[in-house]
C-alpha cells in the first residue's frame, strides 16, 4: 500500500471542500493512504512573499518540518500551496541566513526543518505513481465526453519536475486513461487571474473569460482543473462574464479527481460534484452513450 503525508491547505477545508472530498475518495479507491499532517498552517500563499520574506519561509517551513516527522512524500492538492512550499524549500536550501532564522523560530515549538522531504502535487502522484491502478479501476469509461484539461500556472511553473511549463500533457493523458477525449485548447496554461478577481476585477475578468471562451470554442463539454483557485475563478463568475462579454461562457468545471472518481464508479455525492457551482449532470450522463 502506498502511503503519503497530506497537506490540504486552507481552501480545501471549507470553500473548496468538493476537491478534498474527491481527493480522499479517489485515493481510498486506489488503495493509497493519505495521512493528514498534524496541526498544519497556511503555506503563506503567493501573498506573504510580497510582504515579509522570512515570515513566508517560516510559514512553509513549519509545514515541511511537521511533514518530515511523518516521513512519507507530501501530497499537495492545491497548486498555489504546491508552488509556495517548493519555492520556500528552494530558498531554505539556498539562503543560509533565512534557514538559520527560521529554524530558530521553529525551535520554540520543538520543530526543526532539515529538508529532504518530497513535495508532490496530487496530479503528479496520480499520473506517475498510480497509472496501472487507475487503468484497472475504471468501471465506467467516460466515452463520448470531451474534456479540456486546464493546467493554469502553478503546477508547471516556475520550476517543475512534473511536465513542460508551456506545453504540459499529463492531465490530458489522465483524461485519456479515463476513456474521455482530451481536447486541446489555446488557453490551457493561461493564468486564471488568481486573486486579481478580488483586487482588480477589471483586469481579471477578460482573463477568466478568455479561458472559458477558448475551452468552449475547442468543443469541450467540460473543463478539468487541478487547482482550487482556478476552480473558483472559472466556475463562480460565468453569468457575470457572459453578460459582460456578450458571449455564452457557460461550461461545467470539474476537478480532475472528480472526473476520475466518476469513471471509477464512485457516486457523484461522495465526490462533491453537487458542491460545484456549475451543474455537470448532463455532461457526465454522456459517458458511455
Amino acid at each position, binding site marked *: 500500500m502506498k502511503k503519503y503525508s497530506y497537506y490540504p491547505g*486552507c*481552501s480545501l*477545508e*471549507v*470553500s*473548496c*471542500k468538493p476537491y478534498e472530498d474527491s481527493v480522499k475518495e479517489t485515493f481510498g479507491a486506489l488503495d493509497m493512504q493519505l495521512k493528514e499532517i498534524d*496541526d*498544519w*498552517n*497556511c503555506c503563506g*500563499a*503567493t*501573498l*506573504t*512573499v*510580497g*510582504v*515579509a*520574506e*522570512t*515570515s513566508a*519561509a*517560516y*510559514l512553509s517551513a*513549519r509545514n515541511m518540518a511537521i511533514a518530515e516527522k511523518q516521513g512519507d512524500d507530501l501530497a499537495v492538492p492545491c497548486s498555489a500551496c504546491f*508552488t509556495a512550499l517548493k519555492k520556500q524549500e*528552494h*530558498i531554505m536550501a*539556498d*539562503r543560509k*541566513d533565512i534557514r538559520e532564522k527560521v529554524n530558530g*523560530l*521553529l525551535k*520554540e*515549538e520543538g520543530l526543526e526543518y532539515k529538508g529532504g522531504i518530497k513535495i508532490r502535487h496530487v496530479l503528479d502522484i496520480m499520473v506517475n505513481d498510480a497509472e496501472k491502478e487507475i487503468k484497472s479501476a475504471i468501471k465506467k469509461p467516460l466515452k463520448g465526453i470531451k474534456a479540456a484539461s486546464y493546467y493554469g*500556472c*502553478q503546477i508547471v*511553473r*516556475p*520550476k517543475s519536475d512534473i511536465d513542460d*511549463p*508551456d506545453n504540459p500533457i499529463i492531465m490530458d493523458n489522465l483524461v485519456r486513461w479515463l476513456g474521455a477525449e482530451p481536447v486541446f485548447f489555446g488557453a490551457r496554461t*493561461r*493564468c486564471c*487571474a*488568481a*486573486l*486579481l478577481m*478580488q*483586487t*482588480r476585477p*477589471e*483586469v*481579471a475578468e477578460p*482573463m477568466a473569460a478568455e479561458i472559458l471562451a477558448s475551452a468552449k470554442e475547442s468543443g469541450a463539454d467540460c473543463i478539468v482543473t487541478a487547482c482550487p483557485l482556478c476552480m473558483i475563478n472559472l466556475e*463562480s463568475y460565468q453569468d457575470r462574464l457572459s453578460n459582460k462579454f456578450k458571449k455564452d461562457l457557460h461550461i461545467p468545471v470539474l476537478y480532475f479527481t472528480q472526473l476520475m472518481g466518476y469513471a471509477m464508479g464512485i457516486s457523484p455525492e461522495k465526490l462533491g460534484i*453537487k*458542491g460545484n*457551482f456549475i451543474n455537470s449532470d448532463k455532461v457526465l450522463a454522456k459517458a458511455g452513450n
Partner: protein
Amino acid sequence: VISFTSNQLKNLKNYIYLRFPHKTESVGNGFKPFPTKELHMNETKSANLSKQIYEEFSKTPEGTKLRECIQCGTCSGSCPVSRSMDYTPRHIIAMLRAGRIEEVLKSDTAWICASCYSCTVRCPAGIKYTDFLYLLKRMGQKAGIKPKNKKGLAMAKSFYQVLSEYGRSYEPELMVRSNITTPFNLLGFMPFAMKLFSKGRLPIFPSKVKGAKYIRKALKKADN
C-alpha cells in the same frame, strides 16, 4: 542645438501618442503619466535604494542575473496582464537602470502581477522576474512608498494579519479587512458569498491551529 517649430512639436506629440498609447491618458486602463512634481525622492536616496534593490535581489537564488537583462521584452510579451500595467515588466528594468526608482516603486506593475511565472520560465537571461517583483513589493513597503493602486497591497497586508491571528486563512475576515477603507466594495462580494453559502462552502468560523500562538510570535520576530 535642435529646435522645433510649434507645428513640428505637435507632430512629434501625435507620433508619441500613436506609438506609445500607454504613455498617454487616452487609454482605458486609467494610466496617467507621472507628473514630475509628484516625485519627491532626491538623487542620493534613489541611488541608495537602487543599490539596495540589486544587493537584496542578488541574495536570492540566481538573483545576480538581473544585471544580464537584454531588454528583449519576452517577459512583457508573455505576461497575461502587461496590458493593464502602467509599465511593462521590461520597462521596469529599464527604469531601474535609469535610476527612476521612485516611479518603479510607485508603479502598479508588481501589484498587478498574478504570479503566473510565464516571464520567469521564458526569460532568456534566466532572470527570476516574478521573484524580482516580490522584492519590489517589499522594498516599496520598506521605503514607505505606496503604489498608485493600493488594493493589492491592502489585500496582501490583510492576509498577513489574518495569518498572524489564526495561522490559517479565513476568507470572511480577509475580505472585511482588505476592504476596510472601501466598505462599499464589500457589497460586491455578497452574491459570491451567497453562492458559497448555498453550497455549504462559506467558512463561518476560522479553523483552529494548536500552534497559532507560536506562529503569532514567530511572525512578529521573523522580519524585524
